[in-house]
């Protein structure tokens, strides 16, 4: 592999995007996070993906549920603060009816977090997902493409939401 390919492979946003493409995600809803800006740009420019920026993450869960029933492969791109806005919908829509959803989550509030307001949800993100029995992966940059693809496969096969958590280290490319 050439050095150039190595540097592309280590671009965190591109690694996630390649995972989305390999999983054939064709419908994405999003609420921005500063760490997602490059990924949102890639998704927004992809003619094969219907991208719907939403006003609140829960709205995205609803849109993705409808899109899946319509035959699309949906993903919700958001910050972990938005997970708190989704809990009821994940339980009483996705889990109740058996609707798969790939959640790509920028996980703020961990080690090195400069914003104190991010810390409470940062600490609660994995416990909340565990309490809801939602499988979550925390890949590094080299694993992200596979992890995103695997997460969708698992969501589709189990007909449940599955999350990929991408922490501060991930976005630094380490």
């Amino acid at each position, binding site marked *: 592999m050439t050095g150039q390919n190595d540097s592309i492979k280590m671009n965190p946003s591109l690694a996630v995007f390649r995972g989305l493409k390999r999983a054939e995600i064709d419908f994405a809803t999003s609420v921005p996070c500063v760490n997602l800006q490059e990924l949102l740009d890639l998704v927004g420019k992809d003619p094969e993906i219907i991208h719907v920026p939403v006003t609140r993450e829960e*709205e995205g869960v609803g849109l993705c549920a409808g899109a899946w029933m319509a035959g699309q492969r949906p993903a919700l791109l958001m910050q972990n603060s938005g997970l708190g806005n989704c809990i009821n919908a994940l339980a009483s829509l996705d889990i109740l009816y058996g609707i798969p959803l790939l959640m790509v989550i920028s996980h703020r509030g961990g080690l090195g977090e400069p914003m104190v307001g991010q810390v409470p949800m940062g600490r609660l993100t994995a416990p909340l997902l565990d309490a809801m029995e939602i499988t979550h992966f925390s890949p590094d940059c080299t694993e992200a493409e596979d992890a995103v693809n695997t997460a969708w496969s698992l969501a589709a096969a189990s007909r449940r939401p599955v999350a990929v958590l991408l922490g501060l280290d991930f976005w630094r490319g380490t």
Partner: protein
Amino acid sequence: MKRMEAIKLAAEAAQAQDALLISNIGYPSRELYAAKDRSMNFYMLGSMGLASSIGLGLALGLPARRVIVLDGDGSVLMNLGTLATIAHYAPENYLLVILDNCCYGSTGSQPTCTHLGTDLSVLALAAGVKFVRKVNNLDDLPPALVGRGVVVVKVEPGNASVPVIDLSPDEIIERFMRSIRLAETS
């Protein structure tokens, strides 16, 4: 008009238009089930506020298929951002019908802000929805049900005496999706 009367007309319109019909949690779903059950009805049993969003996802994913959503004032107030998203995407095949009874009808008829004068049709217009209609009389409802955008229908408070839906969530979604697949392949 009573909500049940409006729901009956909406169910007839959905049947005539071969439309997918998404109905809000609580009594509206129960009233629709009693009025006219179809496999193309999706009865929302949870996730209050998201009927309009589920319908929008369907409409964007199935641009050739008509989608009608039966929502309520309390539910739309819970997800007001949906009006902005609908305005932005404005799919031609999508109609949001807000049955406004000015109260949370399934939980004891506690008043919502529409009771105090909040006008959801004005909010929809302000959000940028181009096609907005307001219906106060039953006779004016059928023509509004063939349009797109948002229709706000003023209905009386009160629920019809109808049983709970005796379908499981699995049954609701499986037959709904089967009806979509059948229509796609036929």
